[in-house]
């Protein structure tokens, strides 16, 4: 077996649209099509090679450029098998493998269609890691020389995010072809996908140790196949597209039958874009990756493991050079009756701050924000304590003005505390005088003599002493700021609590 395993790391975002339309916002594929790798190799090799070799590598299927699939934990992921379903409307993390289970007539099921999973089952025998490649999208337009958006050129771009890695396997019948392909792909500056001239498409390709899938199990009565890539079948008699798989497609005896009640197929139609000719290629109608096909034996026709493996190794159907036709015999996840998909939480590793002015400025801003946040929480608590003194908004406004003036003093904290210590009680207001006259109570210049006024004065005195106590406990550098915040917060709380 000649094959090469490559790791493809996305150095920038990469756009690999599932259809080549320029209108609308087509979604990006969540894998790297083998055809994209074929295109890169062809760009550098095609002109140098004799026609026969060029045909052999790029058109005959003798070299099969497999899709780049998401890598996680050093493993190549499998496309989500379409056999996994869960009951509709029921919040359940467990999915039933309907390739093994029978549908219950009264229940409705929803299929799990998106994502990838690793062919690795945990100790519980139930949980399987799932992988979802990260995508991002944005709206773009063309801008004319006047800075205005051109009409009719608004479009969306969805891309695979940079930093992700994919694993691709390239199989070849001839090892010399494989060496040429390796030279064209590994270690060169490569761009894939759309919008390659600006912003997108930069990847690094390196050769890695072989990723060999465990051999699938071929039971006596049943064969279960998972499409790792799209499958393009053709009717050998008429040449037309065929979407119904037959047993012989997979090396099974002709009499084995497709069990439709336990098989799950989805199809799609697309037209690949040939970058060299800059034209779309012929339309393709394919069975989608992730489709699960269950064949059952009829009669005495026994299947040969060697025949099945040889067929699967060659690839099934058409366009095998583009990576279509990769099929696997019953991976271990499909042997389970049910699975639970385990999503790995994303945690970014710690990284040191860059050593430049901008990073330093950001860190200072963040520190100041933290100090403000801490002060605010403290002040909020103090505000609820001091509200009981029932001082007026005007008086809190006076305190706030003092705090703002303190910022201009050389020693803000000391100055502010002195203002509070030396502040004399203000003379009775006009309202207090009138009230005293009405009640025929005596009132002195300093406000003494009236019970109501005494109570108000005592309250103000208590408020002043509590404020002074609080101020003594604040860091001097922050005192003016916190006092200002406190005064503002109390007025804000009073306004919020006022009945509407």
């Amino acid at each position, binding site marked *: 077996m000649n094959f090469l395993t490559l790791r493809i790391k996305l150095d*920038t975002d990469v756009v690999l649209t599932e259809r080549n339309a*320029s*209108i609308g916002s087509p979604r990006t594929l969540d894998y790297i099509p083998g055809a994209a790798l074929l295109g890169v190799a062809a*760009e*550098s090799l095609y002109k140098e090679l004799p026609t026969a070799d060029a045909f052999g590598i790029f058109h005959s299927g003798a070299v099969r450029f497999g899709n780049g699939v998401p890598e996680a934990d050093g493993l190549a992921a499998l496309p989500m098998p379409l056999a996994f379903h869960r009951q509709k409307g029921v919040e359940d993390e467990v999915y039933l493998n309907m390739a093994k289970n029978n549908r219950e007539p009264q229940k409705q099921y929803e299929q799990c269609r998106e994502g990838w999973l690793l062919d690795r089952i945990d100790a519980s025998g139930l949980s399987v890691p799932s992988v979802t490649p*990260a995508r*991002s999208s*944005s*709206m*773009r*337009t*063309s*801008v004319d*020389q006047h*800075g205005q958006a*051109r*009409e*009719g*050129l*608004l479009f969306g771009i969805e891309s695979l*995010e*940079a930093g992700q890695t994919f694993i691709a396997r390239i199989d070849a019948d001839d090892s010399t072809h494989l060496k040429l392909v390796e030279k064209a792909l590994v270690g*060169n*500056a490569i*761009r894939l996908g759309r*919008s*390659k*001239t*600006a*912003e*997108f498409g*930069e990847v690094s390709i390196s050769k890695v140790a072989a990723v060999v899938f465990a051999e699938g199990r071929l039971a006596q009565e049943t064969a279960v196949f998972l499409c790792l890539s799209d499958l393009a079948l053709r009717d050998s008699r008429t040449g037309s597209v065929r979407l119904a798989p037959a047993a012989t497609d997979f090396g099974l005896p002709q009499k084995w039958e497709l069990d439709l009640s336990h098989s799950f197929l989805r199809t799609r139609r697309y037209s690949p874009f040939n970058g060299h000719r*800059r*034209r779309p290629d012929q339309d393709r109608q394919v069975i989608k990756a992730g489709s699960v096909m269950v064949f059952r034996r009829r009669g005495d026709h026994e299947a040969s493991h060697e025949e099945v493996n040889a067929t699967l190794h060659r690839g099934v159907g058409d366009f095998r050079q583009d990576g279509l036709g990769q099929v696997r015999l019953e991976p271990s996840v499909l042997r389970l009756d049910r699975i639970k998909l385990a999503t790995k939480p994303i945690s*970014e*590793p*710690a*990284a*040191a*701050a*860059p050593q*430049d002015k*901008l*990073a330093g*400025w*950001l*860190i200072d*801003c*963040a*520190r100041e*924000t*933290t100090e403000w946040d801490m002060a605010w929480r403290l002040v909020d608590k103090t505000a609820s304590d001091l509200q009981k003194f029932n001082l007026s908004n005007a008086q809190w406004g006076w305190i706030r003005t003092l705090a703002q003036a303190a910022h201009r003093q050389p020693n803000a904290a000391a100055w502010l505390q002195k203002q509070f210590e030396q502040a004399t009680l203000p003379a009775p207001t006009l309202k207090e005088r009138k009230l005293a006259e009405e009640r025929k109570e005596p009132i002195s210049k300093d406000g003494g003599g009236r019970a109501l006024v005494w109570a108000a004065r005592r309250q103000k005195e208590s408020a002043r002493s509590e404020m002074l106590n609080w101020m003594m406990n604040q860091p001097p550098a922050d005192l003016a700021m916190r006092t200002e915040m406190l005064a503002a917060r109390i007025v804000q709380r009073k306004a919020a609590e006022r009945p509407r």
Partner: protein
Amino acid sequence: MSHLVQRTLEFRLLTWWHPGTGRGDGATADAVAHRGADKLPFLPGRTVKGLVRDACRVGVEAELLPEATFMELFGSPPPTANNSDAEFERVRALEAARFGTAPGSLRFSSARIGSTREDQTRWSAWARSQANDRTGVISHLYSYVASTAINEKTGTAKDHSLRTIEVVVPLTLHAFISGRDDTPWDVIGESVQLFLRGLGSHRNRGFGRADVHLVTT
């Protein structure tokens, strides 16, 4: 494969700037700034290409650069259609035009914080590691500017004209341009320095003023 040469393009932003997305985020801002998955602001590579192309287009008019060289560097112009045509004809014309375009020889990266690719990777890794940081250290790169239209007769704000946009602090970004050996780098550098004065939206209102030049190696 021909040998590619790389040059660094430095964008020194002198004022607050707004890399538009065409999107708002509801109550906070009518227009949010473009940022990457790492939450750092950046200028998309397609925007960088457009800005350099526009500057070089003025360079062609100023006879610094031949038209043929301009087409070779930047490729075919974006397709246009006669706006008076029916929708179907307009779309058909655009679709047909895309098969007749030719790519340019220059390759542009996005303009990001960090003067080298390694610095940009370090910045991105640090920004991602701050994602759960409650101080929101990266958020200090952004601020909001609110503005309103004034009724010329009354001098008061017009109703329903309040608009808030998210802007980015003045900072320096670097992008990388790759081209063939025979690329006229000096002319591109001259055009960019002379004719590329601002970027992003609201340039007529003081945002996005920039000093751009090709870094000599």
